[in-house]
């Protein structure tokens, strides 16, 4: 099913809201998201945060599975290199997702749909900014049809 614009526009009128899955590592980004809450920094309600112990736990296969299930964007976020609670988890994340991002872009996935950022437990404003920006970018891109398993 290659991309069919007709269905895409139809869905846009039905006040479609982008749905973004965020893999957040417990020690940094999840804590950063908590701090964003503590500081009452508002951001669009389009993300769903999935807690993982370390960004190193995020298997690229989860990302493809998310797109299959109809998610419009995926963000994998973790501690800044050097700050990982498990010392080296995010170094592997960096290697794996440097490759994965390029592969996804290579098969035609718009790069804005799949992003990776380092967000530490203290960077609540950065968390808010990343989420707001990503939601806007994906809103302009429209709903994601690529890799989507909508045969059922």
């Amino acid at each position, binding site marked *: 099913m290659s991309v069919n614009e007709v269905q895409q526009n139809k869905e846009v009128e039905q006040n479609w809201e982008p749905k973004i899955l965020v893999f957040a590592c417990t020690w940094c980004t999840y804590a950063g998201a908590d701090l964003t809450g503590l500081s009452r920094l508002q951001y669009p309600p389009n993300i769903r945060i999935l807690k993982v112990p370390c960004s190193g736990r995020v298997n690229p*296969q989860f990302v493809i599975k998310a797109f*299959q299930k109809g998610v419009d964007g995926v963000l994998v976020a973790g501690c800044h290199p050097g700050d990982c609670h498990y010392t080296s988890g995010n170094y*592997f994340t960096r*290697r794996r997702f440097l*490759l994965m991002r390029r592969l996804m872009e*290579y*098969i*035609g996935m718009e790069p804005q749909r799949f992003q990776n950022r*380092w967000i530490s437990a203290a960077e609540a404003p950065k968390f808010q900014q990343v989420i707001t920006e990503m939601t806007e970018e994906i809103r302009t891109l429209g709903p994601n049809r690529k890799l989507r*398993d909508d045969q059922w």
Partner: protein
Amino acid sequence: MVDLTLEIRKTAKELLEKGEAKVVLGWEKGNFPYSTTPVFIDKPEDTERLIWDEYCINNLALYMLDYKHLDGKVGIFVKGCDSRGINRLVQDKQLDREKVILIGLSCPGMKDEKKAKELGPNADIPMAQKCQDCRYPDPVVYDVFLGEKQNKKVPEKIDTSDVEEMETKSPDEKYRFFTTNYEKCLRCYACRNVCPACNCKECIFDQTATGWLAKANNVSNNMFFALTRAMHVGGRCIECGECERVCSVNIPIMLLNKKIIKDINFLFGDYDAGLETEERLPLGGYDYTDPEEFM
């Protein structure tokens, strides 16, 4: 194509007679002039079946997985890509280097069997795509060497012109290209079963209970299979091109593998899998100075 068939048979016969090897893996003629098929000789007199022609394209390294628990050695003829396959298995701890006697052959590049079928036997048949891109015709590891080496000037880096050309396309064009290809994929898993890097005991695609990939055949699941396998062999693929050769619906699988190889070279420094067995795998380690794009 220098004829080594006699030398091959003689070497195999010696190995079996002296009992150095319990079985010798080579090629024999199939039912058609363009088809050769792997053969497992364990009796000296059967070595007559061994041949060496321009269709011995199968990578025999993978069969060593069936001989893991054989008490005794195995003789195996290895071309350039086969020898990298052996290194792949040794590095993945699926093969004990001492258990195998490698008889090296310099490979002139094998012919394209599918073309031979179409054009008929007498037309001149082009070289298989995987051999055209070949950078290591001489085996990188062997115990015995037959014939002379070509010492061909090896192109410095893997040729990724087709990958670069694909990269210039727009997202929708790229997506359309890959989905039209993987729409026809039958999920017969021939590409997985022929790949020396896919040496798992039980593949996640054979464990439907876990829920990674449903058995339903649609383009979304086929893409999941393709991307996941590309990532799994990432940093370990020896560019032997067997997956593309055996695909029953002719999908250009190497386009994905070569993309990852190109990115690994660019991001983490040039790395050719299967040249030796000690160096750390690109995805098996990290470096503080890795490129930083996630700030």
